[in-house]
């Protein structure tokens, strides 16, 4: 099974911290469908770098406050387990 992406994100918690912004509202601000926001939140779709920056800008936070990528150490631990 191909894993869509190893990138994780905190969009859901960021939405709630941003006055409980709805997925529809975020989608509208990004110019995508609500289904795409859901797919990004659930890790089923890895957005382009440009969209990633747009998402970070909507919440007014740096990119790595929205998206995280496992480092080499956790990669090796994951492979060993």
């Amino acid at each position, binding site marked *: *099974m*191909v*894993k*869509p*992406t190893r990138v994780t994100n905190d969009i859901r918690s960021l939405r709630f911290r941003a006055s409980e912004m709805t997925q*529809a509202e975020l989608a509208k601000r990004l*110019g*995508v*469908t*609500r*289904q*795409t926001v859901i*797919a990004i939140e659930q*890790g*089923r*779709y*890895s*957005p*382009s770098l440009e*969209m990633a920056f747009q998402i970070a800008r909507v919440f007014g936070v740096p990119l790595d406050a929205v998206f995280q990528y496992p480092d080499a150490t956790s990669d090796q631990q994951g492979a060993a387990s």
Partner: protein
Amino acid sequence: MSYEEKGTWLYLVVAIAGYSFYLSWVLPEVLAGTPVADVDYVAPMLWAIGGAIVVTIIGRILVEIVFPSESTKGDVRDREIDRLGTRVGSSFIVIGALGALVLSMLEADWFWIANVIYLCFVLAALLESITRLVAYRKGVPTW
């Protein structure tokens, strides 16, 4: 479910229904022992292809009436999924063309040439739509 995903489901259903309709018309004649050169496959094939186009258009309208989408515009993810499906499905278009080429060289009956091409069109549509649906449901691979 997004507008584009609903369209993909419809495409899959129509592809299966159209080919089933065609087979239900032609297969009994073939199984009855009629020589393939005498089997009237042209009219059913044209009806199946033409009908599939019309049913897809009408179906798209009906689906939107019954289950209206939030937006009828696709986005970047829809386009990525569309490209992925097309890339995977196009393999069967090539196989169909090669099959038809070989059959022509072997001077096979036109019935077989037309049917190999049509079958590969249908298989391409199935593979394309299934790939898209898996991408919509399970995620877009990032290789």
